[in-house]
């Protein structure tokens, strides 16, 4: 069901309106059986308050497409910022949000300066690991003197 999969993937993330849940790598599977569409989605940050809104938006999109939705949230394997697609990373950058660094296997590190999404300089500082939403950190660029957000790698 490529058509329905594309519809589900194109649902907007409520807190990052320029990104879809497909860009974020949240859609695991869409299976259609008669009129029933079974959608498997993986949640991102455990405390993300957008999760319930995403469920409602996916259900509405599936109903619009003429199916009865059954939306299931799936924990395993766990979501990671590495699941964000190249398109998603490009959209983050275009929106002025520095995309997440690759997570790798080591401990979470914020030591490497994040490149400024506005001017590209690496002369940036972390000002707070906690920003306006659970997924973002706050930085300031010493080159262009602008504050910016980054998507936290988890």
């Amino acid at each position, binding site marked *: 069901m490529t058509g329905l999969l594309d519809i589900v993937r194109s649902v907007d993330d409520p807190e990052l309106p320029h990104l879809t849940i497909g860009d974020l790598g949240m859609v695991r599977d869409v299976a259609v059986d008669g009129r029933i569409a079974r959608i498997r989605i993986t949640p991102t*940050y*455990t*405390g*993300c*308050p957008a999760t319930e809104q995403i469920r409602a938006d996916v259900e509405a999109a599936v109903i619009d497409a003429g199916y009865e939705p059954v939306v299931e949230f799936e*924990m*395993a*394997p*766990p*979501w*990671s910022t590495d699941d964000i697609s190249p398109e998603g990373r490009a959209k983050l950058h275009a929106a002025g949000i520095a995309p997440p660094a690759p*997570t790798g296997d080591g*401990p*979470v590190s*914020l030591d490497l300066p994040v490149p400024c999404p506005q001017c590209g300089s690496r002369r940036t500082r972390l*000002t*707070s*690991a*906690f*920003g*306006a939403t*659970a997924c973002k950190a*706050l930085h300031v660029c010493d080159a262009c003197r602008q504050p910016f957000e980054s998507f*936290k790698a*988890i």
Partner: protein
Amino acid sequence: MAADLFTHVLRQGDRALVLSHRLAQWITHAPTLEEDVALANISLDLLGQARHLFTYAGELEGEGHDEDHFAYWRDASEFRNPLLVEQPNGDFAVTIARQVFHDQAAVLYWESMSDSGDTTIAALAVRARNETAFHLQHSAGWLIRLGDGTDESRRRAQAAVDAMWPFTSELLGADDEGALRADGLIGESIESTWQVAVADILLEAGLERPTSIEQRTGGLHGAHSEHLEPLLHEMQGLARAHPGATW
């Protein structure tokens, strides 16, 4: 009696929920706007972890209880959180000392659970571990700045460390979970790693590590300090006054 997996998951959920509520009490009271946002974010992460843990506890229990049941419809004696997380916020140093001790334990706990034989907890553990690493970075950074700051900040930081220390042993595991460990459902003991890691943070902060303070325990078995009940009264009041209310 040996604790079952349900009890273990409930203890973890209660730990996360109660500390989440304590941190939420800082909102609009934190020393700076950035700190207000940071404590709110950490609170929200813990609330998210609690919700997943309660939902899973309900599945393990098999009596049809959802996350709201565990959060809103149990009394203090039914809560299984360690005593540390229910301790009042005190001044900012107390909140930070409490948070450092908790976050270091939580990082090690979730790390140890990513190999759990229980796939639901193992999947949650990977994400919770990464979130908690940010919390520890934040709280340990503050404790180091307070300990290494002015005479007054150092005095308060040491008083806070001394005040929270008696509640730390319960963070490092329960005395009745040996069977869960033998079955591979929970990981190895985090105690020695925690002791070393916390000693390192205190050393960098220039603070003394308390040695001869007697430990207080009981929360994991439902014997709480006098501070839990008022917290639950505040947290549960709305849900109990309007059962089943929705937005």
